[in-house]
């Protein structure tokens, strides 16, 4: 297999909530069109770290970072970077499905509409394509004008994925995307992640070790704000280098 390009990089990244040192000197390189899983116990900083890649932490009072986050080699914390432009490149799916209280169609095309795209044929095509991509098209194609809130939780989450895909980002951040879903929906989302990595660089935060093992190519283990170990998922789960990693993945704490 040919060497893939580096897509995302963190260099000596520190993050603080006021006085609390949430992320401590993180260095990591993630390659494109691969799935990287962040695992670790609650409060270890993995979600905070995920959210630095689309600067979602910017709105939290007292939050600051130093160090660099590079997307395709460009530091996204530079002053001249527009966060709204950045987030069109780096899409996000949240823990709890959060569709807008609008129709299914309006949800999917939201990102296109705010970019000023109004042409109905373009929107319709993008909606169908994104919904197909998110494996939801067959279930909703006859009720696109129905409220998104009438869908099941799993369908809502796939709708949120379709919504994120519609603006063709290159990176997809997923913050425990299946933790609020039932096992069948979870399986569908995992299957979807597997398909999506052909086109997208995916970073997924998960509490579920089996899930990390199933969907990811690389796994990063965080503990108390530090990146303890980062390796190929297979290697990590069969022969972890660090004792803390071993203890965590064998369920001795967490």
């Amino acid at each position, binding site marked *: 297999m040919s060497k893939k390009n580096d897509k995302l990089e963190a260099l000596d990244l520190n993050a603080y909530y006021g006085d609390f040192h949430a992320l401590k000197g993180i260095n990591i390189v993630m390659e494109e069109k691969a799935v990287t899983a962040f695992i670790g116990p609650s409060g270890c900083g993995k979600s905070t770290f995920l959210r630095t890649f689309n600067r979602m932490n910017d709105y939290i009072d007292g939050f600051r970072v130093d160090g660099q986050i590079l997307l395709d080699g460009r530091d996204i914390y530079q002053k001249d970077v527009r966060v*709204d*432009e950045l987030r*069109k490149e780096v899409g996000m799916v*949240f823990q709890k499905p959060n569709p*807008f209280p609008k129709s299914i169609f309006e949800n999917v095309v*939201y990102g296109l509409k705010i970019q000023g795209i109004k042409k109905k044929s373009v929107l319709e095509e993008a909606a169908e394509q994104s919904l197909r991509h998110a494996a939801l098209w067959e279930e909703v194609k006859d009720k696109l004008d129905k409220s998104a809130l009438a869908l099941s939780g799993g369908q809502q989450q796939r709708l949120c994925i379709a919504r*994120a895909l519609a603006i063709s980002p290159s990176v997809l951040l997923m913050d425990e995307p299946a933790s609020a879903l039932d096992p069948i929906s979870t399986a569908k989302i995992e299957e979807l992640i597997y398909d999506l990595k052909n086109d997208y660089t995916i970073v997924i935060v998960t509490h579920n070790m089996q899930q990390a093992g199933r969907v990811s190519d690389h796994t990063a283990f965080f503990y108390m704000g530090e990146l303890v170990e980062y390796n190929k998922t297979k290697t990590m789960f069969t022969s972890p280098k660090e004792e803390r990693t071993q203890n965590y993945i064998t369920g001795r704490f967490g």
Partner: protein
Amino acid sequence: MRVSEKIIEGLLWLSAVITVLVTIGIIWVLLSESIGFFRQVSIVEFLTEKEWTPLFANKKFGIMPLVAGTLLTTLIAIAVALPLGLTIAIYLNEYAHARMRQIVKPLLEVLATIPTVVYGFFALTVVTPFLQQIIPGMAGFNALSAGIVMGIMIIPMISSLSEDAISSVPRSLREAAYGMGSTRLQTSFGVMVPAASSGIIVSVILAISRAVGETMIVAIAAGQQPRLTMNPLVPIETITTYIVQVSMGDVPQGSLEYKTIFAAGITLFIFTFALNNLSFWIKKKYQEKYD
């Protein structure tokens, strides 16, 4: 123990009953006196006659000039308060830092504590002369300056209720909007305001209801001349102002002139009652939607 429990229960029951009784009493007085009025003046005349001159020799009993005055000042007030109040609410919610919010919010509450009589004189002695420089033909008493000042008075009502409505929109929706690359403006107007719309509508209805019932500002600054017009530059009279005017005058109790107060009062009551019920209904519907 059980006895004191019973006593407290009785006291609580009594307080509840007193408020209900007072309300019933008010409605009863309004109704009985109005019925007396409508025995002498037909409802058709009351609703269709274009003049309201119960205190003159040539008596005419058309409520419409008073309703028009009330609607006109209310309309102006809302036209001032809605854009400003909503902008403030969005600013506080989406743009302002925590410290800024802590300063601005109490300051806005101060606006709500100023006695309305002060607002009235502010309208008459500051706003009217200022407006007269811009609009030369404007009368000294007019609906415009009373309406504007009334609008300023109800800004905090709209801004703080709307702010509550916007901040009760689930955080996840805001994150969804930002996550899709929305700017703050797109997040506010495309997602937050629509999601909070029922709460915002309730705030506006309550503000309207407040403006309809407002008395002092219009009594001082709008003149006391019932006139069926939508021209904001001339003196008008609102329902409330008329009630004050007659109540303070020397109209003999029991006379037809005296009963006009109650006819005007019940008209006002119907307006505010309908508005409050409307807001209650919307609020209820909105809560069902989010549960």
